[in-house]
């Protein structure tokens, strides 16, 4: 094999120089001639039927057009797995921050002023915020006829037998909270029509190829007539996996035939993108006298809020990782994703695998404590090694340096 040029050597990142000099171009740094500005109007209610009146706002001088669901030329929907988001809410809002309309004006100032003049009549509906309540048959429904959108089941061995043999059984409940990515660059974008007549959108995104499909579908255009460009991305952490402003901009340019720019404030950014799923975790773990894990039963309820985004993938991953990196012969895991009227949840750093250690690792500490074993020791006893089988039956055939890592940390932490 030829020696590698990049791997193993120190290289300066390709975009590094532009970034330290302030020359890297993020979407908000793009200014085009004759550019119009957009402002999104969002729901202020958690769950309501809506009626939108844009007449007054349209009379503001400098307003070019106000887009609502009526202006969507293709499918009024998007979503990475389920198409459960509307580009603009047609009848109903399901969360605070749902997009309802988009003002296009010749300045940001005018767009903001007109946005305030759009009249929205809300007829409020009962709402549900607790995923456990939302799972009940008689709960109000967010979409369709069940709020449970996913149930991952993992069964290995026989948990009851495992618990019968256990010397110690620990049962606890853990909850994690919703987390915001707060990437430093708020969403922004610019759209225009290029020389070939294609609709172009520049936006910081994690999925230009997905965005292209979603924009084309919402506008009713062929895929090749939509271009998505990804200038510098100011952090993402999963928060730029769903559509935010891409379709609004593309539609605005298609309707006005002009370049359009939109820059979200920090507050709007909070409303616009997903969050990390909060998970309610019930853990029951059994071990023998020596601290060897024998059985584990886990129930995970992930609140995906008002839209599914990556809920299925996130809660599957949470389920798969629920045991932590430990060998357990008997496992029963149920992991659910549930709709509520909360902000919607999707990808965020770890994709479900970040939440479960809050439960699985505390279980380990409690078991160690009850058995009078050192908490590091119990991890060394049970930790994955080459040849281990995970809860979902994967045999780890190579590179599992967990024990080496734990020992290294231990040596450095407790070095005299």
């Amino acid at each position, binding site marked *: 094999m030829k020696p590698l040029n990049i791997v193993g050597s120190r290289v300066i990142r390709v975009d*590094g120089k532009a*970034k*330290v000099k*302030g020359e890297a171009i993020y979407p908000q740094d793009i*200014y085009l001639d004759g550019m119009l500005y957009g402002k999104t109007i969002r729901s202020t209610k958690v769950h309501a039927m809506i009626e939108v009146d844009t007449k007054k706002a349209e009379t503001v001088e400098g307003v070019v057009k106000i887009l609502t669901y009526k202006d969507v030329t293709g499918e009024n929907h998007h979503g990475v797995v389920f198409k459960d988001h509307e580009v603009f809410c047609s009848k109903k809002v399901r969360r605070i921050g749902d997009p309802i309309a988009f003002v296009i004006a010749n300045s940001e100032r005018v767009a903001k002023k007109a946005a305030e003049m759009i009249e929205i009549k809300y007829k409020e509906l009962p709402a549900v915020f607790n995923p456990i309540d939302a799972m009940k048959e008689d709960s109000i429904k967010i979409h369709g006829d069940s709020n449970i959108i996913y149930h991952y089941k993992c069964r290995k061995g026989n948990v009851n037998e495992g618990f019968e043999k256990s010397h110690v059984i620990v049962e606890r409940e853990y909850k994690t909270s919703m987390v915001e990515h707060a990437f430093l*660059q*708020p969403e922004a974008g610019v759209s225009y029509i290029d020389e070939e007549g294609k609709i172009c959108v520049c936006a910081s995104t994690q999925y230009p190829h997905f965005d292209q499909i979603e924009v084309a579908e919402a506008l009713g255009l062929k895929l090749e007539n939509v271009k998505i460009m990804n200038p510098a991305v100011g952090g993402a952490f999963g928060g730029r996996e769903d559509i935010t402003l891409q379709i609004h901009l593309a539609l605005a340019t298609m309707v006005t035939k002009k370049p359009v720019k939109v820059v979200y404030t920090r507050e709007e950014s909070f409303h616009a993108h997903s969050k990390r799923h909060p998970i309610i975790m019930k853990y029951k773990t059994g071990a023998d006298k020596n601290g060897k894990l024998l059985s584990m039963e886990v129930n995970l309820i992930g609140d995906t809020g008002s839209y599914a985004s990556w809920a299925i993938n996130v809660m599957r991953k949470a389920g798969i990782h629920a045991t932590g990196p430990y060998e357990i012969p008997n496992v029963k895991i149920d992991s659910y994703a549930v709709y509520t009227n909360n902000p919607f949840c999707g990808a965020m750093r770890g994709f479900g695998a970040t939440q479960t250690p809050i439960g699985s690792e505390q279980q380990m500490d409690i078991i160690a404590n009850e058995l009078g074993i050192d908490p590091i020791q119990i991890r060394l006893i049970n930790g994955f090694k080459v040849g281990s089988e995970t809860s979902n039956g994967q045999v780890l055939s190579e590179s599992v340096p967990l024990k080496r890592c734990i020992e290294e940390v231990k040596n450095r932490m407790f070095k005299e």
Partner: protein
Amino acid sequence: MNHISLTINKKMYSIDVEEDVRLIDLLRDQLFLTGTKEGCGEGECGACTVIMDGRVVNSCLVMAFQAEGSNITTIEGMSDKDELHPIQKAFLDKGAVQCGFCTPGMVLSAKSLLDKNENPTREEIREGISGNLCRCTGYNKIVDAIELASKEIREEKKE
């Protein structure tokens, strides 16, 4: 409308600004100095940091008319076209740049710190960048970079 005169990156400007325009808007929207970034618009993140009369300020909290007569350095004034200031070079060498959105503000805060204290402790460096948020790096590499830059600058002076 106000008419103001100020110096930005050693260049004199004489320019009309509306009453409600902030310094960051003047820099970005009127002068297209887009290296200055807006992360929050309320003085929390430091992405909009510029050096004004020798002090770091959040340009989102300064009104443009308040900059009358001032001397401002933005990231564009840190180094000439293809050159890098030792701080910028150290940021690259130490891997202190990820998404880069905090970087211009960080570099300017570092400059302002090293202008006043050419051999800061790590503690003093942390204090010096305490007004700048970074969501990507975890700060350690930024501190390493500023430490390295301070060493380089001191050595340069000796020569």
